[in-house]
């Protein structure tokens, strides 16, 4: 196992997350895609911490990202609930009021 293996797993996760965000119409699915992308970044931080001289800094950053992801998930779920209250759906294609 080396750095490249870890980076490869991170990249797969990232692409999976992005594809999930881009293809899911369900708001919760999109949120899950976001979590995948964030965790791909976490995996990279941890890998760099482990295999390079980045050291503890990378791990601290990944902890920050986890906390931010939790906060982001809370806000996003609140938005999803509010959206559902107004539209009786969480289909993100229906949420196009910001169209220019």
């Amino acid at each position, binding site marked *: 196992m080396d750095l490249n293996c870890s980076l490869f797993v991170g990249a797969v996760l990232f692409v999976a997350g992005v594809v999930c*965000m881009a293809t899911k119409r369900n708001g919760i699915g*999109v949120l899950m895609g976001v979590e995948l992308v964030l965790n791909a970044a976490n995996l990279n931080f941890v890998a760099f911490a482990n295999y390079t001289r980045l050291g503890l800094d990378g791990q601290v950053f990944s902890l920050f990202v986890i906390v931010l992801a939790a906060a982001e998930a809370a806000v996003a779920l609140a938005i999803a609930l509010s959206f559902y209250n107004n539209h009786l759906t969480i289909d*993100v294609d229906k949420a*196009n*009021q910001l*169209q*220019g």
Partner: protein
Amino acid sequence: MDPTTLQSTGETLKWLLTIAWLLPLFGFVVEIFGGWWGGRHSKSAAYLAVACIVTGFICSFSALITWGCSNHWAALQGHGDSHATESHDANSTEPSHQVDAHGEHAKDEHAKTDKHGHGETAHSESSDAEGHDTAAHPAAEIPRSQLIYTGLFYRLARFGSLDISLSYYIDSLTLVMFTMVTFIASCIHLFAIGYMADELTDNYEDHQVHTSHGHLHRPGRFYRFFAFLSLFSFSMLGLVLAGNIFQVFIFWELVGVCSYFLIGFYTERQSASNAANKAFIMNRVGDFGFLIGLMIIWTWFGTFQFGDVAVGKGGSVQPGLFSMARGSDGQLRLHIPESGVTEVVFKNKDNHIETDGNGEQRTIPYYLLIAAGLGVFGGCIGKSAQFPLQTWLPDAMEGPTPVSALVHSATMVAAGVYLVGRFYPMFTPEVLLAIAYTGCITLFLAATIAVVATDIKKVLAYSTISQLGYMMLGLGLGGWAAGLFHLITHAFFKSLMFLASGSVIHGCHHVQEMPQMGGLRRKMPFTAYTMLIGVIAISGLAVPYWTLWGEPIAFSGYHSKDAVVATALTFSKLNGHPLVFFIPLCGAGITAFYMFRLWFYTFAGKPRDHHVYDHAHESPWIIVLPLCVLSIFAMFCAFGGENGILYKLLLASEPIALANGSVPTADQVTAGLMNISLSSHEQIHANHAQAGLLALVVAFSGAFAAYVCYGARWINTSEIKVQFAGLPRFLVNMWGFDELYDIMFVRPSHVVAGWCSAFDRKVFDGFLHGCANAALKVSAWDRQFDETIVDGAVNAVGNWTNSLGRSLSVVQTGRMRNYVMFIAVGLLGVFAALIAFFPST
């Protein structure tokens, strides 16, 4: 007399006269502002004005009595006595006789004041007693300078050594003028209450103004009339009280502007507003000369004060104009350099030569002194309507009759004569001769025009001009007291006649043409007979060879006109100049003729216009009362003639050394100046009987001629008019002066004004219009530029931004998955760019 008494007398006189002077101003202010809330039907303005002026009269009369009581009766008597002793051979009157006459007069005055209820009896009695007491000590001669009180009210400004101040100069002339002006003004105010009563309405109909809706209707202006009368009295009194020539000028102009207001009182009438303008403008012509005189005096004398004034506390005295010019001996001191112009040396009151800071004697070139005198006299010509500025006065009859009486017989026109009298020490013999000839021409001119005038007020107007000519003549020939004597007596009988004519006009419902009158004495007896008294007074008729208590039986005009004619006779005997005697002599006859013509025309004979006659009525008591009062004064104010109190009072203020006459001094002969001797009192007195007799004969023949033509109608005057068709027309046209001035001044000014207006319209207006058009063009271009280029650029930027935004808004799909795609693709693009541009890392 000790100085403290003199000083306290001076203070008393000052305060009395100041009150008399300022009360009408107070009245004016209250009336002009109070008139609004007093209403158009209230007579309160009139009562206030009358109260002010009557109080003023009481103050002035008290001042006169105060002046007399503080021992100046002695001065009068002393003056007369010394005069009598000097001329013991010529003067047959004994001193004791003079005392008697004086006593008689004082009693007479006493009686008069009783009649009018002016409550001055105590004063009169004391004056009477003083007269007798002091007559017993004729030696108490008082130095002349003590008879004059001068002082300062308020300093307006100070330029170097020159003071512009309000000051006073009180001598017997001031006091007599004050008493005369306030008394006559009181009578006229009373008269005006009755005469102007038809203005007490909200809807006054002016029958002489025609509008498209018939006659003009306007609110009555009763209060305004009285306000202006008060202002006028104030101005005139200020002029008389003034202690310096500049203050005289201030009040001179105030008098002018008041006359403007009053002549133009019926301002809607074109004729009235024209007359007011004419009076004002012609006075300005004279005032121009006055200003020149003032400037010369300012430049060379450095003071405007008449009398000496104490400067500061040190008791140093700055000599006034009279002292500087005449010193204490009354002579001009000439300095004749080897080459150059003759100069007059300034003196102070001790007759020492005035020096400037360098010890050089201060002088004025003789010709400039003449110019200053002529300039000031020019002002008098305008104000007193002398030739050649006489034409405004007849037109000024457009004002209401009380105005004519006040402004144009007793006070305003008197201002010019008064100033000549007041400024007398400054006039050189040359100026005096000019004054005399001006008066001479004026009196003849106006008298001839009066003969053909048919408007009752116009006859009186020309008669006024003519009598003013007499006064100027008397003054110019050295008869200082004679000229002013005639001024005072004339004021009484002329205001009487003006008021009587006002009564006629009032009674005949504003008919003024004498041919429409006739026989009115049966309808209005009081007016007719008081008018007759005035007519006899002005004509100078007397009962020859009969005397009453040693006095000729005659009215006031006889005495004063005799004094003038006697002066003229003496002057022409001394110096040649026969015209200055013969013209006033003829004038006396013409005066009697036209005055009796007026009376016969109006009051005697058969009524010529039955409509007027049937509606005529005697005026109410408030109009008749002033007539009666004035007629008493017209009869008796000059009682005693040249030994009477009025003449003596005036004589007490006569300029120094005039009494002894003058002959040309050696200096004057050397300098080649005019060779004129002024006559002394005793010379005049010697000629008095002769001149008086001649004047009486001429006056009687004039009166008889009037009786023949207009009273008995033995001669048909219309036939005479047909026979000499040219002459009456010439006279009716007032010697063509109005036409002459029209051709000389009015039309040339019209032509020049036409040129100016054409120049204005063509050149100035053209230029201005060109400028305006050019500005329009330029601004049109500017607008074009603004609208196309500047606005276009701004709009283009705006439009471009707008369309860019619109086209870019397509990108904002609002779909979340699109945005994620953009992010992903964008990220890939960024990585691709990084790899492409930085391949080595």
